[in-house]
């Protein structure tokens, strides 16, 4: 019941969903469409645990006046704001929930994302050094592609963007395909081991 049953469920579901892929029939399609929804619903229930965990941690921090506990109040405030507005007034276009999303969450997320512009520059400077042959190849390919994507026509000829495109289309694609085929095999192998119950670390310990 505690170990065998979950392994059996995992096995059966794995086989069903593998076989389903080859059956275009309506029943099979129905299963596929619903399965994806079901899995996200299961995830939503799990989110109760996740948010519960987050709330618990921050409450503990505040209670025990741990370092930075004041900020935990901010986090708790944020969660409550989302939940109260979201469940209280719904999620229509101009609801308080969406205002919170558009003017608080989106700007901060977009700003975090845009940090990449800085980090890509600092990482390039810090790490693109011709230390070894491999590093030099990486460096040269990166510089060619970067220059190829800048509108420098007239200064250097068409050959630079053409070369950049060629690198992207051929050597780059070849490497990507090689990695992807390996990933495909590795993923299938891992999935098989999980279905067969060989890989069972997800069960955790205990009985």
């Amino acid at each position, binding site marked *: 019941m505690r170990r065998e049953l979950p392994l059996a469920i995992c096995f059966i579901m794995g086989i069903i969903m593998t076989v389903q892929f080859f059956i275009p*029939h309506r029943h099979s399609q129905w299963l596929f469409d619903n399965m994806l929804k079901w899995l996200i619903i299961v995830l939503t229930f799990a989110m109760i645990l996740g948010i519960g965990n987050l709330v618990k941690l921050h409450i503990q921090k505040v209670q025990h006046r741990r370092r930075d506990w004041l900020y935990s109040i901010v986090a708790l405030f944020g969660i409550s704001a989302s939940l109260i507005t979201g469940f209280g007034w719904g999620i229509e276009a101009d609801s308080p929930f969406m205002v919170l999303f558009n003017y608080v969450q989106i700007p901060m*997320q977009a700003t975090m994302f845009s940090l990449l512009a800085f980090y890509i520059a600092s990482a390039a400077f810090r790490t693109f050094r011709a230390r070894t042959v491999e590093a030099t190849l990486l460096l040269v390919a990166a510089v060619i592609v970067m220059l190829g994507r800048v509108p420098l026509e007239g200064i250097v000829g068409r050959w630079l963007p053409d070369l950049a495109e060629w690198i992207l289309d051929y050597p780059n694609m070849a490497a990507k395909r090689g990695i992807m085929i390996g990933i495909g*095999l590795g993923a299938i*192998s891992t999935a*098989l081991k999980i279905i067969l119950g060989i890989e069972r670390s997800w069960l955790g*310990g*205990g009985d």
Partner: protein
Amino acid sequence: MKKLTGIFIALSLAAAATAAAPEEPSLPVAARDGPNDAGGAVEIFWLASPLEKEEGFKGYEVQRRAEGEEVFATIAEIPPGEVVHQDQEAEDGVPYEYRVRVLTSEGAPVVLGVSKATASGQWFNTARTNALVGVVFTSFVIIFFIFRARGGAELFVRKIAGLDAVDDAIGRATEMGKPILFVSGLADASEISTIAAMTILGKVARKTAEYETPLIVPCYDPIVMMVEKEIVRQAYTEMGKPDAFDEDSVFFVTQSQFGYVAAVDGIMLREKPATNFYMGAFFAESLILAETGAETGAIQIAGTDRVTQLPFFITACDYTLMGEELYAATAYLGRDPLFLGSLKGQDWAKAVIMLALVVGTIFLIISTDLGIWFAKLFETSAS
């Protein structure tokens, strides 16, 4: 090896033979059940009418009537130039008659032809025969070698630098008295890379339990958090230190990509972990994490199967497990024969794929048509 390749090629040939060739209508109008579908669809083809070239040609009209019905109802008007229509509203099992008429600006429509068809759902998608052959073959090879390994066959695995560094990295954190940060990617538990990350976490946690080094595991997904909590607890129990396990070391953050990154960046700057692991699925945030970690001077070991993010980890981290190496980590760190066996199976499958690439190349050299025919064996259908 030879035998396996033979089987593989024979199966592919069989697959090619059974795959339906696109039908050319021999009659003016031909209707057939939509192939490889869930049912409810009929395809109607027709030969272009000679009237197309004449002035006033407006297109075609597709009509339908079920058995027993008197009149044809128009179901679609087709612009000039197209000679195919898919009726998506056919009822399964009902015999229909389809009629195509030519529309002209003057005069009544001219009947082009009539054809009968009945829609049904199929029980096997022939367009996916190659995938079936692939799945059966790959599974067979992998399971075969797992069984051989169980029989006690000698198994070798090559050096993977990123994994050899794991012990040192944990040792270093212990010496410095600093924690270890483990990020298991920003995907849910359904991703294979997340599962690989969980297994690596299990191995890492055994070491941190042994040395009693603090471990920080912020999670992006609640199910991942549930599972990882159990994995870490189990590792501490197995190492005989259940009391050293801190329940709060594995915690949920948020499912917002950049919200999660903001939090992990904060942890890196405040807790100053000596070692950062980034294992699993990563997206645009990979470089933000790796650059922030580099700034704090941590040793960084990354592993991901996201091809687009590998360049950033390669440049900003000390060690990077690329693609399949991430999955191989479980076998490498645990040296469990069953896992090593599956690794060997993967290698054999790889060898067969390489052989297929060579064969395809030879075919292309012999004749372009032969090469294209061979390549099409691997073509996938989207639907």
